[in-house]
């Protein structure tokens, strides 16, 4: 059982300035997830009639991308996983844990640790889909895709859009996310029809949302719970430059 001090960012709403509030939690099991530890804190706050700490969460299985939290200087905390899969055994009794929301112009804080990540939805709406009719299920082996390319596309597609890359980046750049979404479709035959306009439109939307520019530091990939690779960003650059040079969009 652990006793911890939490420095939690509290902010009433988007306009509020916000600030850190210290809380003590005790009797925390090392088997609890980080979110369960916060549940314990919130139960206590509710019992005292105080406003519980707001944070995003959904599946708690590490696959939905809803949970966030910038813990002790790392998105999703010290392990390369999602916050829901981060367990309290990663901390020691008596630790002081600083918990902040994702910090980016593109992710405004709604309340406490909850941010509005709909900027990512708008980037997907700008081109992260296949809209052409693909017809019925094709015969097996009719559209040949080499195994290495299929694996590459799958790796890119494992991005859960949590925004840890933006949170980790010194420049609050969303390029790891955008490049993964461009890559997963650019690599496969179904993505070819809209390949050029997709790259152009998604990059334009990313810029319009106010995310920063990549300086190839690599913090995003190192902190990504799914280990999305930096080679995706190089692919996005290739896709974008070849698209603007050769597309029909003047």
């Amino acid at each position: 059982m652990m006793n911890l001090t939490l420095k939690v960012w509290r902010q009433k709403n988007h306009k509020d300035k916000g600030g850190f509030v210290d809380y003590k939690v005790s009797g925390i099991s090392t088997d609890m997830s980080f979110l369960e530890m916060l549940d314990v804190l919130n139960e206590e706050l509710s019992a005292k009639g105080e406003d519980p700490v707001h944070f995003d969460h959904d599946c708690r299985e590490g696959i939905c991308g809803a949970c966030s939290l910038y813990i002790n200087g790392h998105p999703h905390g010290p392990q390369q996983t999602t916050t829901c899969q981060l367990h309290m055994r990663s901390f020691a009794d008596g630790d002081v844990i600083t918990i902040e929301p994702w910090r980016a112009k593109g992710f405004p804080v709604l309340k406490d640790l909850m941010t509005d990540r709909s900027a990512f939805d708008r980037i997907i709406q700008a081109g992260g889909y296949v809209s052409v009719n693909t017809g019925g299920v094709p015969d097996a082996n009719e559209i040949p895709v080499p195994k290495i390319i299929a694996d590459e596309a799958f790796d890119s597609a494992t991005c859960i859009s949590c925004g840890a890359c933006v949170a980790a980046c010194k420049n609050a750049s969303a390029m790891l996310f955008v490049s993964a979404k461009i890559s997963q479709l650019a690599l496969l035959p179904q993505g070819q029809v809209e390949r050029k306009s997709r790259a152009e439109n998604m990059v334009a939307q990313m810029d319009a949302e106010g995310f920063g520019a990549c300086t190839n530091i690599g913090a995003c990939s190192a902190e990504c719970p799914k280990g999305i690779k930096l080679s995706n960003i190089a692919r996005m650059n290739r896709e974008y430059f070849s698209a603007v040079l050769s597309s029909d969009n003047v």
Partner: protein
Amino acid sequence: MSWVTKTFKSTLGQKLIMALTGLFLIIFLIGHVTGNLLLFKDDGGQAFNEYADFMTTNQFVQILSITTYVSILVHIIYSILLTYLNKRARPVAYAKVDPPKESSFSSRNMGILGTIILIFLVVHLQGFWYRMHWGEIQQVTYDTGVYKNLYAVVVWAFQVEWMVALYVIAMIFLGFHLSHGFASAFQTLGLNHRKYTPAIKFIGRAFAIVVPALFASMPLYIYFFISAPEKLPF
């Protein structure tokens, strides 16, 4: 907005400009360091002075020189634009930051490293480049003709401890700047490949050590092995 303006106003377009100007400056460094190796030639500076004359009068070199000046300016301007854009992308800073070990010190501090190199560049250009182009320099006569004795200016400059120290320290910062910049430029151009990226990274690290070390060896060599000219060379 035309597609060209739109492209160069995008984050990727601005990064492309940083990468292209950076790569051109890397090529410039290769030329600069190779030519300056003539300082080691034991001929009282004749080869170096003839080379310096060629570099300031040859028409083709003039074009390269202008491209270098433009590259330096554009590299600086776009670094400021991008830094401003990147700062605006995170209006509220984190209270606690712990960068992952995968991100290098250089990669996180390119702006600071670049600023230090810029300050060095002002001193460097004032001391040699400005003097060679517009300053008063003594002439020296060889059987090939009459030349400005830039060699004497160089030797005179590097008799002073703090100048030698400034150059050596500046080259260390240049090394750190290159250690990230070299490979980073290729990544920005989209050149990332399982076959070539490890080689690019290796060459980048080697370049970041070898080229600044060669540059730094010049003031050290002159300070320790070449005696000062009898009178002020300008």
